[in-house]
């Protein structure tokens, strides 16, 4: 009996698994207990109680509203929002840029394709942090001081403080004006279809949109002009009012997008080149134009190849946003650093940061996997 048990590979397998799992659990238990002991011995206060206390430190720019009297928890939320905001914009810009790069590299035009190749070589081979510092250096050195700001368009000011531009101000009834204008747009679009058949499309579009703009202005006027433009004004040391793009944000967005676009471009090019030559030939035989073949035949098939490596590219982009601390943009990493310094609760703060990045990354992964499953070839 024992002998058969001893030689049962199934039983031995299970025993090994259980022993391994048990060992792992013991190790984690030991590390956990040890950490708590060490923290207590060194007089380091632990726990997440600090999260509800007011943060008291300023954050230079935020996507969601924040004042220093908000809690540490809210400061983290602000950091997460900034990180996501940064990631989304960068991924969008880098994907568009990457597609343009890939198409440029594949084009028959020798100048265009070589320029694209040179771009990829340069941007892929310089460390990201160097590019970011370079972008920030440019943003904070080529422009004049606010009092001497460049003014290329009325209401737009370029200076060392960043870009100030007019902002929309929404008064009472602005929502109604937008709603009515949207309705008008739908109405004109519908009537334009019913115009006589001999009217060319270009005319229809210009005519309908012209009428729509005129009608919208009339509505805006009648409603008491609730939507206005507020131009930034130089008062004291800085511009006030208007909308604002800081040098820090500009530097990280431009730097990170240019860098990521180089990688995205190569992934997309690889995907396109992996689609068989026969597809092109088939498309031509059907009388499709080159553009139609690219966008309707090749790219949809290339997507299957592009999506998995692109997923990892997106993931590293999300993680790369932590480099924004180098140029002073308050993403999650910078906020975590500040909180650690203000509260001394390093372990908790780092744990929160780990949790947040894991969540963001897993979400991106899941989304991309779902997308990948959707576009996969359905085999019958």
């Amino acid at each position, binding site marked *: 009996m024992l002998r058969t048990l001893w030689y049962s590979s199934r039983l031995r397998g299970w025993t090994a698994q259980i022993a391994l799992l048990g060992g792992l659990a013991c190790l984690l238990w030991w590390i956990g207990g040890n950490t708590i002991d060490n923290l207590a011995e060194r007089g380091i206060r632990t726990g997440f109680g600090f999260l509800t206390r007011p943060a008291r430190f300023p954050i230079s720019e935020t996507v969601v509203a924040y004042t220093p009297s908000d809690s540490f928890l809210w400061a983290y939320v602000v950091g997460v929002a900034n990180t996501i905001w940064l990631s989304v914009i960068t991924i969008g810009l880098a994907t568009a840029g990457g597609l343009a790069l890939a198409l440029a590299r594949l084009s028959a035009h020798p100048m265009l394709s070589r320029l694209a190749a040179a771009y990829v070589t340069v941007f892929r081979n310089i460390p990201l942090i160097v590019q970011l510092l370079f972008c920030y250096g440019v943003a904070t050195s080529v422009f004049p001081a606010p009092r001497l700001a460049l003014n290329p368009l009325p209401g737009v000011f370029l200076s060392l403080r960043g870009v100030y531009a007019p902002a929309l101000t929404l008064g009472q009834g602005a929502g109604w004006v937008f709603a009515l204008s949207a309705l008008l747009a739908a109405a004109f679009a519908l009537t334009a279809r019913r115009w006589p058949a001999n009217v060319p499309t270009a005319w229809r579009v210009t005519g309908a949109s012209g009428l729509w703009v005129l009608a919208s202005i009339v509505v805006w006027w009648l409603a008491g002009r609730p939507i206005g433009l507020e131009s930034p004004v130089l008062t*004291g040391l800085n511009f006030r009012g208007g909308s604002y793009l800081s040098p820090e944000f500009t530097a990280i967005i431009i730097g990170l997008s240019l860098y990521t676009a180089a990688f995205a471009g190569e992934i997309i090019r690889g995907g396109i080149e992996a689609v068989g030559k026969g597809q092109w030939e088939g498309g031509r035989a059907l009388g499709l134009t080159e553009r139609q073949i690219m966008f309707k035949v090749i790219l949809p098939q290339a997507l299957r190849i592009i999506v998995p490596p692109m997923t990892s590219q997106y993931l590293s982009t999300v993680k790369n946003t932590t480099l924004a601390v180098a140029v002073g943009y308050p993403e999650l990493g910078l906020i975590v650093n500040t909180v650690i310094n203000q509260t001394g609760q390093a372990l908790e703060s780092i744990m929160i940061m780990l949790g947040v990045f894991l969540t963001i990354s897993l979400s991106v992964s899941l989304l991309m996997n779902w997308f990948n499953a959707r576009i996969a070839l359905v085999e019958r």
Partner: protein
Amino acid sequence: MMDHLKLTALLAPMASLLLATAAQAATTLETVKERGRLICGASQGTPGFGAPDGDGYWRGLDVETCRAVAVAVLGDKDAVDFVPLSGQQRIPALQTGEIDVLPRTLTWTLQRDANGINFTQPNYFEYTGFMMPKSLGIAKVEDMAGASVCVQTGSTTEVVVNDVSTKHQLDLQPVVFDNTSAARQAFFSGRCDALITDAGALASVRASMAKNPDDYIIFPATPYVDALTPAVRQGDDQWLDIVRWSIQALIAAENFGITQANAEEMLQSEDPRIARFLGTDPGNGTALGLKDDFAYQIIKALGNYGEMFDRNVGEHSPLKLERGYNALYKDGGLMFPLAFQ
């Protein structure tokens, strides 16, 4: 990547929290003596307070404070290793035992005191200040409305910016950097109207980084004075005492009129207080676990607090700071010697 490195630097001491076992029960004094070297936290380069000179030799007021402890414990002012730490690395580094003493322009605050470190004896008193280009024509906080301010994290100044902005309704626009030199460069490139940090550090930055130091003005951000104080880990009272009384020795020596030059002569002094201080009348040093003449050795190696001040940040330095709050109590300052008995 730079940031990843920093995170690693933060995480490495944390790993020691996870894995270190309770076996290391040795006191800090024993550990330092056995190692034969003292390890001090230092700044990433604030000339006058802590920075390596052209030959790589660390100089500065904070640095010499640390050397004083090294003399007291090991009898050698050069038996010290300095670990440059950023603002947010410095406290975890002390708590996890990476360094023995943290003299790094660290403000004594309640939150820090309550959250895992102990403060010893202030070695520098000062206000938090703003530095601005004179060309902007602003010389006091009330006129700073709308100014953008370069701030470095890991300091108490982030909170000060907010306090000042709220109090005077200035709508200050902070630009926060996690790296000291990045904040300073951004200020000198014109990204911000003002730079905020301790006034002494501002003077240091002005003397070492400005093209023409006279183009910049420094003024107080708040009416309050902070005590910059070397800190030690919680839970080792003997070590706390050693560091505190080593710094005290510098101040007391100035009060007694003992200098590096006359220390040997003073050994003959008839004054019983001075005799106890210098250890000719024994008892003080051994009570701390040190040699009885530890104070004498410190003064012999480094001079008294006044000499140290003049050499590093005062009249014999590029910073040219006034003694101000850092004068002895009898000259109207805040430096107060305790009783060596």
